[in-house]
């Protein structure tokens, strides 16, 4: 691909201020997302995927801050833009959906108004015009009777409906990039599928690129063309969705793939229970020396405990950060 990527993250480090001491909560983060592409970021809680997303949209707040690296949006560095210039991008060109549809909407403001704000902020519309557009936006996320629903308050809507409202807000201005941070984690399973399908349809129709963040590898691989796996503040592997299932290169990714429940696989492999990855994610303040996954890794050797592995390119395209991959 020769075209300038939509967004390019280059060696990003995110610092956490722990009582005056700066600790890298995530570092060496590099990836690119092309226009209209769907890209997934997978990892356990606390691996740094959500703060990476917040860094992209410029919403890191104390005690978190960008320590090093560059974020380029359409080839232009945006991490050092003035707050006012960042706000022009935020919501308009880069939008975000959050995990908690229960609390992510203002409880004392009608949902229509919360959508309409986008048109007032970024498109210079009057409130009257913005309210009309909000009804259209609500209709586009397949909310029945949108002209009545705009007057509803969040508490009057179900979790799925609220997440539809969030999607309507995020896509209101037709952004180039939609960041979805665990958009379906808090929802019922049946509703999850509807929301994912809705997001996929709308973004495909508008050519919006998606950065999907989840702990659910199966979900991400299903939605995204490429997937990056994060562990303890680092991207440990990046491959196409197909390859990551067929040939997971990093032992951690293998663990994730192996821990996915699949119908019929028990019988086929004669296994009595799901595989798990032993141990827990290390705390940000005490990442292990060498490879950060070494205390939990089944293939660990001496070199893993002392030398941090560099990024290796994979033959099939993609990259991995492991001494013993393949």
């Amino acid at each position, binding site marked *: 691909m020769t075209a300038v990527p939509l967004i390019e993250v280059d060696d990003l480090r995110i610092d956490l201020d722990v009582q005056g001491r700066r600790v890298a909560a995530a570092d060496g983060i590099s990836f690119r997302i092309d226009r209209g592409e769907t890209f997934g970021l997978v990892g356990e809680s606390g691996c740094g995927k959500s703060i990476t997303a917040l860094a992209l949209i410029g919403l890191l707040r104390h005690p978190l801050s960008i320590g090093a690296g560059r974020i380029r949006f359409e080839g232009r560095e945006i991490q050092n833009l003035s707050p006012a210039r960042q706000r022009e991008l935020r*919501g308009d060109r880069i939008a975000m959906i959050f995990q908690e549809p229960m609390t992510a909407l203002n409880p*004392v403001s009608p949902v229509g108004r919360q959508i309409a704000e986008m048109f007032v*902020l970024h498109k210079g519309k009057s409130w009257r015009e913005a309210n009309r557009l909000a009804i259209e936006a609500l209709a586009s996320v397949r909310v029945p009777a949108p002209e009545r629903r705009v007057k509803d308050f969040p508490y009057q809507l179900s979790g799925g409906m609220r997440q539809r409202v969030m999607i309507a807000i995020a896509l209101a201005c037709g952004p180039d990039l939609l960041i979805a941070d665990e958009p379906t984690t808090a929802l019922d399973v049946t509703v999850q599928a509807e929301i994912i399908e809705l997001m996929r349809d709308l973004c495909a129709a508008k050519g919006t690129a998606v950065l999907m963040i989840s702990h659910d590898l199966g979900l991400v691989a299903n939605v995204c063309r490429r997937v990056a796996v994060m562990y303890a503040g680092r991207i440990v592997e990046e491959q196409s969705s197909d390859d990551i299932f067929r040939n997971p290169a990093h032992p951690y990714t293998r663990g994730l793939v192996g821990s996915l429940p699949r119908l019929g696989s028990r019988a086929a492999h004669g296994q009595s229970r799901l595989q798990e990855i032993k141990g827990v994610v290390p705390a940000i303040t005490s990442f292990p020396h060498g490879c950060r996954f070494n205390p939990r890794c089944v293939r660990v050797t001496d070199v893993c405990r002392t030398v941090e592995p560099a990024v290796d390119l994979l033959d099939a395209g993609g990259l991995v950060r492991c001494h013993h991959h393949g």
Partner: protein
Amino acid sequence: MLAFAIRRSLQIVPTILAVVLLIFVLFSVIPGSIVSALSDEGRGAIDAQVAERMQKELGLNDPVHVRFASYVSKLATGDFGTSFRTREPVTSMLAKRAWPTLQLIFAAMLFAIVVGVPLGFIAALKPGGLIDMASMIGAVSGLSMPKFWLGLLLMYLFALTLGWLPSFGYGDGGLMYLILPAVTLGVSPMALLARTTRAAVLEIMTADFVRTARSKGMSELRVVKWHVMRNALVLILTTIGLQFGSLMGQAVVVEKLFSWPGIGSLLVDSVLQRDIPAVQGAILVAVLFFLIVNALVDLLYVVIDPRIKYS
């Protein structure tokens, strides 16, 4: 909404009855009466016959339950009884004094809201900043300073030293006379409001929906105006309501200090003289005021926060 308003107003009635009973019982068990109070005033012992006649005339010799029954049945017709001291109907005494007290309370609350709420917002926008520190130190001082002391200081500064304002009294009922007592009464609710507002805004600023608002590309000022303000208002309103009600009680000290002819100073004088009907009347008005304010606050909640439904 209307049904709720009516129901909420009716809830006031049993509380009033309980208060009436309580005051009545209280005054029947504490020692002293209008008769002994008169002799304590330095006029020397009252002739035993005169004392006996007074007791009888005022109905003080009847058993408590008889007096209570006759009081309540009169009260039901809007008759608060007759003052033991002045032989004036309590209703007309209260009517004369209600306006100065209301003036004082509303002026104090206005001062508290106009100064306290913006101060809290400003303090919350830069927590730990200079304005925050200064206003919070001011708020703590305002809360902990006794009213009679603060009142004396203000009198000394603005009336005696600077001569800008009259030191005490109601005068012609003009604004100049109102300022010092109102500020004295308003400082502690102002301080409390500043602190509550600051805490409410700080808490709401960490809410998920504020992050959503920021992700929309709003400036911090817009975030506060469009999303934080209304949410904070629910918490602020609670404080305003509670303070409003208790100001009636706090006004007693301020009215006495500034010789303000309100219900508070009437209450103090009547208690000292064991003028039971006047005390009853003054306390009932105070309680009624408290209850009405609280009922109004409950109604306002429904207007501000759509999640609150009374059914």
